[in-house]
């Protein structure tokens, strides 16, 4: 069997991945490797930086590039130092929603403000997967988690709005169900000259779906089709209908 080209971005000796069956993160991992291949990026000029959590394991150890697996929440700050000192590196942060927006929220908004050239891919499963399914700042109101047994009383962040408000010049959202769309926005993010952020909805059946009356991992994945609407499509909906939908698409892509 001929190895697909994108395999050169992967350390196949580390397979199988540690992700649970049905986890979205493997799809995201494949999408990143395919984008890098189609864009003909040089694996020896790529630096992937991650924090702590399941999503942080997407690049480390799976990507056959330089990788920096850092402390919890701090990936963007480490990446900032590396990028500033060696601008020739293409720096990509891949981490989870808890890592990037709870403990690491300060670094996220300041990197967006600085508009440093880097791509941040947030694998957003709206839960702390690795530690056993605790609520985080992206957990929907009412969701049952290990730390909100009666339902989450808090409101979640809309990470795209947050990062947009902080000054990011490329902001998009996609999901691991919409792989073609996901690859399109990842490529746009990777070619963006400035701070690029993609919120990637990536279901965690193990820690979220099971506790929230989703029948199976595939139901959770295919459910994204109904749950999402494009930014343009949303504009045509009544306001009360808009709130129920996850908006996917590009929120900004501008030069500064």
């Amino acid at each position: 069997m001929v190895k697909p080209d994108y395999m050169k971005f992967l350390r196949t000796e580390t397979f199988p991945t540690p992700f649970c069956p049905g986890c979205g993160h493997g799809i995201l991992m494949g999408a990143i490797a395919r984008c890098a291949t189609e864009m003909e990026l040089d694996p020896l000029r790529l630096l992937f930086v991650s924090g702590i959590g399941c999503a942080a394991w997407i690049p480390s150890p799976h990507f056959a590039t330089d990788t920096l697996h850092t402390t919890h929440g701090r990936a963007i700050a480490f990446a900032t130092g590396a990028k500033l000192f060696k601008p020739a590196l293409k720096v990509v942060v891949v981490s989870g929603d808890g890592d990037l927006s709870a403990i690491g929220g300060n670094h996220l908004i300041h990197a967006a403000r600085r508009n440093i050239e880097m791509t941040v891919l947030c694998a957003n499963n709206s839960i702390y997967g690795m530690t056993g399914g605790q609520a985080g700042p992206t957990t929907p109101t009412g969701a049952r988690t290990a730390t909100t047994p009666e339902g989450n009383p808090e409101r979640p962040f809309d990470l795209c709005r947050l990062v947009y408000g902080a000054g990011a010049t490329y902001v998009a959202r996609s999901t691991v169900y919409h792989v073609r769309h996901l690859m399109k926005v990842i490529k746009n993010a990777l070619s963006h000259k400035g701070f690029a952020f993609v919120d990637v909805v990536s279901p965690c059946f193990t820690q979220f779906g099971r506790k929230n009356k989703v029948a199976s991992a595939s139901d959770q994945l295919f459910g994204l089709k109904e749950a999402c609407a494009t930014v343009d499509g949303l504009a045509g909906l009544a306001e009360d209908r808009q709130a129920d939908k996850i908006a996917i698409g590009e929120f900004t892509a501008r030069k500064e």
Partner: protein
Amino acid sequence: MYQMTKNTDKSGVRRFLQGNEACALGALAAGCRFYGGYPITPSSEIMEHMAAELPKVGGVFVQMEDEIASIAAVIGASWAGAKAMTATSGPGLSLMIENIGYACITETPCVVVDIQRAGPATGQATCPGSGDVMQIRWGSHGDYEIIALAPWSVQEMYDLTIEAFRLSETYRVPTFIASDESIGHLREIAVLTPPDMIPERAASCDRPPFGDPATNAVTPMPGFGQGRRLLVTGSTHDERGYRRTQDSAVQAKLVARLCDKIKKGSANIWKVESFHLEDAETVVIAYGSTARAALRAVRLARAKGVKAGMLRLITLWPFPDEIVAGLSSKAGRLVVPEMNQGQVSREVQRCTRLPVIASGKSNGEVVVPGEILPLLLDEHGQA
């Protein structure tokens, strides 16, 4: 370990300047080309100086959003090939501590300057203290070793900062300048002599990135963009960087390397200075600004006929235990004055059977000779 660039410029420049400024100039002379920091009294002049000077030599300065990010950026830059530094004070150091542990386990060279102020917490932002010396040593969780140097003059703020870069690059370990407000803000004359040799990172190397598999010795620091496809992780890893968190042998070998490279290198790291130790019956062990007062007290005591001497610790960590243990048998007792509640005195006690008189002071003021002198005199009935 690394390549050395020979410095041909040997001309020292005499300058009247501030300790913090001398520290920045030492860093630049040592080849520091990245500074990431966050403002904090009484260290900010270092940052301001680096902000002005680094761009002139092609270096990078960045003001980060907090101290956690500052040390993170320094570590990231170090892996990208920079000799990198940050400076802070106690509250900032507290925030940096987790990532300092990360620098230890990933064997990342970096220099951390702590211009200590009186704590705990916000304490006295503009007053000196030495209350961080144990935090510098033990602040992060787990087993590891670091190096710390304690300058006592503006001259040493320059010289020891250069030395800190050499040690940090040699041992691939975070190296601290443990100074305090009184030295950071002191102004006096220093001769700024460029270092003989400046350590340079190798452009490429085929040794494993994390320790020699056979000897477990430290290997040269690799860098991003060298085509090595580096796997750097703060989790337990083997010599190639692969995460091996369930392997007790890999964990044991990793921790052994982090500790042994410093412990076994101690004799090459230690720097102390002796004053009148030949016949000293009472020996003061002091470091940093306190050693200035201690030396004056020793001289005053000798003028009164008391056989006093001083051992000045320039290296605080690894603690020069063999040197303290080897003090002449003439010494009858040891006096340890410091601007904390006896942090180093307990370390001294560990190394000796001699009685140790701890003289701690935590009021945000420097130790003065008059506070040490009575401790040198009283057993002789001459107080």
